[in-house]
């Protein structure tokens, strides 16, 4: 009897020890909380990442930005406007419900409601048709060469669960709380344990996950904590209370590198930061009564471009955590052309000459609209640019504002009330078409919402229309090249750089983690010691 007891005790100890060894809790932090868990409500970076941990998509975007099967096992083009997807069998949602074609059709209907912020991802889709329980056809309005690129942001929800909780309608900030925004039921590798807003969000591996046998991570639990204050976030990492945090303030990168237990992971982000000019008003807002708008002259735009010392900004303001760029899209975006990424050289004397040629030997006044809480060191970059432009004679009045005021001033709500502005852009579809539509063309629905200087070139317009439907990849790339070249020769904008991501990681607890260039933590790739 005593022996049995002893054995049991030993077993208990062994089990406990195994339990301790097995328990891998990954604690990570970033500046703010997710906006909600409803996959179809919000379109915001950190929120989308969290949705990706919880919800499955037909296709998943891998760390290198290529696509891999998720809920679809194979897909083929039936004709120019029809794609057929075979769905994975035997997949279950977190609550145990089975996944089938009805869920895909339902999710399409839910995500394309006008109040859904994710509807843009399916804007070209006419219909999703169920063929049988495990096959669907996606029919597009016209030929859509980049439909597949949007599939990783088409989130699949459970029809029965959503209907049972009366959560079909995506409501925002009026009426009742949307059940799906504070609960989650997906097919993703993790399931929701608890969400206390602004305090913690706890996930555990999904025991029903279809690809459980092949997961890369070894977590038993993940705890996400928003920590707003930069210094506190760094301190929490240094003290070992969290295993990973981002962003690392640029001034703390060295500190984390020098600590034996931490490391700063850096890499380029997909967002391109650029400057833009008012190219449409006949009279500049800053030169009332003169009837002149210098920025309508290409030579003036070129002069401003060449007056900016991008290397100084990279070295001094960004502490080398930036990749200067000559294009409006980053490496990794579909359509990026490496050989076109060069920049016109920094040349203040040439800039002065160009201004003189254009008839402004003594310069002219501009107001420079710049956000101060949106991008890495946004205000500092603008502050550095001011004297560079003053040096060639342009008199700059900086106007630094919080993002919620800045975007309205330069954007449509105030009818592009700006002469010269800063903006950053990541194409939601990871394809060149999106910036062509949103930043470089205008005048049609879905075009030019952020073409704040109203850059307008008829040939770029024409090319953009063709790029929308060109199914031949070679021809499409040639068109993208032509459009980008025209924009570049026009000095339509001044691309500055892709800012760097900086993550702080504990070396003693985290074995490996993959930093995707969209600055998010995909828990699929976290391996702990």
């Amino acid at each position, binding site marked *: 009897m005593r022996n049995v007891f002893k054995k049991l005790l030993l077993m208990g100890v062994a089990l406990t020890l195994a339990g301790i060894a097995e328990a891998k809790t990954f604690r990570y932090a970033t500046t703010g909380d997710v906006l909600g868990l409803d996959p179809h409500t919000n379109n915001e970076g950190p929120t989308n990442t969290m949705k990706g941990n919880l919800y499955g998509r037909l296709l998943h975007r891998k760390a290198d930005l290529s696509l891999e099967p998720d809920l679809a096992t194979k897909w083929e083009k039936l004709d120019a406007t029809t794609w057929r997807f075979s769905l994975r069998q035997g997949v279950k949602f977190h609550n145990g419900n089975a996944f089938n074609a009805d869920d895909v059709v339902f999710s399409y209907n839910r995500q394309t409601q006008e109040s859904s912020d994710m509807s843009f991802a399916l804007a070209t889709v006419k219909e999703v048709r169920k063929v049988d329980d495990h096959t669907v056809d996606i029919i597009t309005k016209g030929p859509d060469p980049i439909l597949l690129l949007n599939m990783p942001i088409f989130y699949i929800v459970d029809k029965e669960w959503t209907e049972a909780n009366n959560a079909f309608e995506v409501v925002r900030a009026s009426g009742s709380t949307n059940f799906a*925004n504070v609960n989650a039921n997906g097919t993703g590798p993790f399931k929701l344990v608890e969400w206390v807003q602004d305090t913690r969000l706890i996930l555990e591996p999904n025991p029903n996950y279809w690809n459980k046998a092949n997961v890369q991570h070894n977590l038993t639990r993940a705890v996400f904590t928003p920590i707003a204050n930069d210094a*506190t976030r760094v301190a929490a990492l240094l003290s070992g209370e969290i295993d990973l945090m981002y962003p690392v303030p640029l001034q703390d990168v060295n500190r984390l590198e020098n600590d034996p237990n931490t490391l700063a992971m850096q890499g380029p982000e997909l967002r391109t930061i650029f400057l833009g000019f008012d190219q449409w008003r006949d009279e500049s807002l800053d030169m009332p009564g003169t009837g002149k708008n210098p920025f309508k002259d290409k030579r003036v735009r070129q002069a401003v471009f060449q007056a900016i010392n991008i290397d100084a900004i990279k070295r001094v303001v960004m502490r080398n955590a930036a990749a200067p760029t000559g294009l409006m899209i980053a490496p990794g975006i579909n359509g990026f052309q490496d050989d076109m990424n060069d920049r016109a050289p920094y040349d203040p004397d040439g800039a002065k000459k160009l201004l003189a040629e254009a008839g402004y030997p003594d310069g002219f006044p501009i107001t420079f609209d710049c956000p101060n809480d949106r991008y890495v060191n946004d205000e500092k970059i603008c502050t550095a640019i001011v004297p560079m432009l003053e040096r060639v004679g342009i008199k700059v009045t900086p106007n630094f504002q919080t*993002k919620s005021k800045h975007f*309205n001033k330069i954007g449509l709500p105030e009818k592009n009330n700006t002469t010269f502005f800063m903006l950053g852009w990541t194409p939601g579809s990871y394809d060149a078409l999106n910036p062509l539509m949103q930043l470089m063309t205008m005048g049609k629905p879905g075009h030019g919402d952020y073409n704040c200087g109203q850059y307008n070139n008829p040939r770029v317009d024409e090319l953009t229309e063709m790029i929308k439907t060109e199914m031949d990849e070679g021809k499409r790339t040639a068109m993208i090249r032509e459009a980008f070249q025209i924009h570049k020769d026009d000095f339509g904008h001044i691309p500055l750089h892709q800012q760097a991501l900086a993550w702080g990681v504990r070396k003693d607890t985290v074995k490996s983690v993959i930093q995707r260039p969209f600055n998010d933590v995909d828990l699929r790739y976290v391996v702990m010691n």
Partner: protein
Amino acid sequence: MLAFIIQRLLQAVVVMLSVSFVSFALFQFVGDPINNMVGQDATAEQRELLRERLGLNDPWPLQFVKYVGNIVQGEFGMSYRVGVPVEDLIADRLPATIELVLVSALLALLIGVPMGVYTGLNRNSWLSRLFLTISLIGISLPTFVIGILLILIFGVWLQWLPTFGRAGVVDLGWWTTSFLTLDGWRSLIMPSITLALFQLTLIMRLIRAEMLEVLRTDYIKFARARGLRNRAVHFRHALKNTLVPVITITGLQIGSLLAFSIITETVFQWPGMGLLILQAIQFVDIPVMSSYLVLIAFLFVLINLIVDLLYFIVDPRLRLDSLGRGAH
């Protein structure tokens, strides 16, 4: 007395109305919440639809009237950020702030009052000088520096205390408390010291100055002449007579502790009202901002009422006055 209290509560309504009116006027300058609510790919029509649905196209006086109308019906609105009712959000956050403020206020009083009495009585002792020097730090260093210093020393170097958050919380259903667990107390220590330091210094210096003043008066001399013991003189006669200004200041300070724990809460990621309002401002979450300000206005009035009532207890002359004249 009852009439007095009712009168004060009516005043509270007026104060709350004016605060929300002024805040609605100011919200016009905070920015547009729509940009924070939708992503970059939302179309102009979607933005307009949302703006219309939230009533942001109405002129602000109309927005204000609608807001007051809803409050009268007990509706505080939905937070723009996650879409949950504002009263739920505030009810979630209030316990964290109240507990933090309570501990800080107690710390400030329990340490500040004895220190003040001691430095008032022993003006020239080295300990008094030490206290005064330390208190200078409390007055002159900004809260966030103190907080970050504490985090660096006790969180990062010594690793005795957690650097952020409110751990060990026990949910009682209607209230969440960190008083019941060791972890809870551990995470309370640094934020409450950070928040208390300024109040502590203020109380100590105030009591010291008042004590020095009172100790010079005739009735203290007479008390001593009557042969009373030092303890009775110092605490019964002197300290009690210093308390009216101290209560006033402490009351006001507790109000500002509640209202302005923003910095401490941000530094320690303490999930209370201060953090909530900061995030609401960044997001331009108008329903949260306005309800918060109204609530704070109410708390200020309430605290002032309690302070007024305490005067009655401390100062017998007021009681006589009010008995003579009825409630004032």
